């Protein structure tokens, strides 16, 4: 995907709009209060009924997976200041105010777009590999890694909506600016049999990969024709599906579930997220954030983990 390429930008924008649409739906539904568990590897709560029928996994019709640079908007903004509206009459005054507003809106949007464009440059060395990452191929590698006991099948064509569960998946990947980690933001919509057009559950799942410790991250990602990029992307996608199948979206009761600020690693940086900790071990913390998103995060060194967290056998980390 060429970041400067117009069709690619349109695909990326369309993917982000669909991702955000699901994100809005999930935010409206709210957060849930699943019990805290200490064994992340195998003991997920099974809230969606298991009836033995296969689940069809449908990926977007667009071929190419969207990758972008992780961006920080903390510095965005145009500052403050007084503004005078010298005008000979009321009409001119109103026109001056409206013009001021439009100019500011345009500047703010332009500034954010510029920040994202600058962040996307982190992917420049990897474009030859990323051009060939398709949704179908990525899902074929990811599906065998999903730990659920359910039978997941990649949908070829249109599966029978009356007979089978269907999952629609849209992942978008970000790379940290230090190139040491990938982040997957995946919108998941689950359709039960007989309800072809109405998603019963919708999720946003974010999985932040454990940062690579290679001295030269570019060489690491590009080695063997980009194998690590594809493998880590597939693992993050598999982890997203695991979370989506294990933790249903439940309306959050007032005061339910203690909130805390979780510290985790995103590349070489320490980041924080406020939410409810659902499960924890040495390598991963599973959090439901304030938007109701499920997040699988590598804990930072400053994060205080329960004593038992590292004593159980954890699953593999993406």
């Amino acid at each position, binding site marked *: 995907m060429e970041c400067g390429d117009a069709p690619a930008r349109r695909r990326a924008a369309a993917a982000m709009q669909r991702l955000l649409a699901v994100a809005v739906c999930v*935010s409206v539904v709210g957060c849930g209060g699943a019990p805290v568990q200490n064994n992340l590897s195998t003991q997920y709560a099974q809230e969606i009924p298991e009836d033995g029928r296969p689940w069809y996994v449908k990926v977007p019709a667009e071929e190419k997976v969207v990758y972008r640079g992780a961006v920080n908007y903390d510095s965005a903004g145009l500052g403050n*200041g007084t503004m005078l509206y010298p005008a000979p009459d009321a009409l001119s005054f109103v026109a001056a105010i409206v013009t001021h507003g439009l100019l500011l809106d345009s500047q703010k949007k332009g500034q954010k777009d510029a920040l994202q464009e600058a962040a996307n440059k982190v992917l420049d060395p990897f474009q030859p590999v990323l051009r060939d990452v398709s949704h179908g191929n990525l899902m074929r590698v990811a599906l065998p890694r999903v730990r659920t006991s359910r039978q997941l099948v990649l949908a070829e064509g249109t599966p029978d909506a009356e007979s089978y569960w269907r999952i629609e998946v849209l992942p978008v990947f970000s790379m940290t600016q230090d190139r040491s980690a990938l982040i997957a933001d995946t919108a998941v919509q689950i359709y039960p049999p007989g309800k072809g057009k109405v998603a019963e559950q919708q999720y946003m799942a974010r999985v932040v990969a454990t940062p690579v410790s290679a001295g030269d991250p570019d060489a690491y990602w590009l080695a063997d024709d980009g194998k690590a990029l594809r493998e880590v992307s597939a693992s993050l996608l598999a982890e997203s599906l695991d979370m989506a199948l294990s933790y249903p979206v439940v309306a959050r009761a007032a005061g339910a579930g203690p909130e805390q600020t979780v510290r985790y690693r995103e590349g070489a940086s320490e980041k*924080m997220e406020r939410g409810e900790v659902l499960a924890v071990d040495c390598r991963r913390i599973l959090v439901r954030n304030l938007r109701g998103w499920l997040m699988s995060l590598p804990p930072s060194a400053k994060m205080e983990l329960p004593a038992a967290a590292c004593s159980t056998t954890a699953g593999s980390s993406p």
Partner: protein
Amino acid sequence: MTRRALAITLLLLSTFLGACATKPQEPLALDKSQLTPNLGKVGVIMTPIPKIDTELEGAGCLLCYAAAAGANSALTKHTQTLSHDNLPKLKEDIAALLRKKGIDAMVIPDDLVLDKLQNVSKKGDRLTDKDFGPVGAKYGVGKLVVLEITALGMLRTYSAYFPTSDPKGMFKGVGYLVDVSSNEMAWYQPVDVLTSAEGAWDEPPTFPGLTNAYFKSLEQGKDLLRAPFKE
């Protein structure tokens, strides 16, 4: 104009200009070699936590402010329900870091109300405006680590009627280490943390993205105030 009126005018003018010319205190890095048991007894104290609220910088005129306040009323209503997440515990965190260095440190549970302290007549670089001598005498400490939290909540910048930024989570304050006998500071650190929401910010009524940004700012602010006392 009579001579007396002229003298009064000149006096007022010079006072005004003198105040404007007062240099604000520059940040002072803490010399970690001072953090030894020789520092004496140190008290860690905090000013009252301000009301958690929205700030609308730049909406200067009355009508501008009214328009901005109205446009952000849902956010303000939610912001005022947010907690400070046990911010006073920061005093104990810093006291514990001082004790690790062998310093006799205590947490002062009472809030420090700066307005109740006397002003000092001697001004200068590294000198506080207030006299901390009585505070030191009251609690039996020779040094004070003062944590002055000035603003918590959300900040949005404006140019007259229009926002120039999305709202951001905000933590503002200053930390300083003051010798109560001389009111001289060995450390002065302003902290101003603004964090944007990830993705959309306008998500009423609970604004989860901005709420997350606020708690991030809170944690980062605490980290910055703790950092000089760490190894």
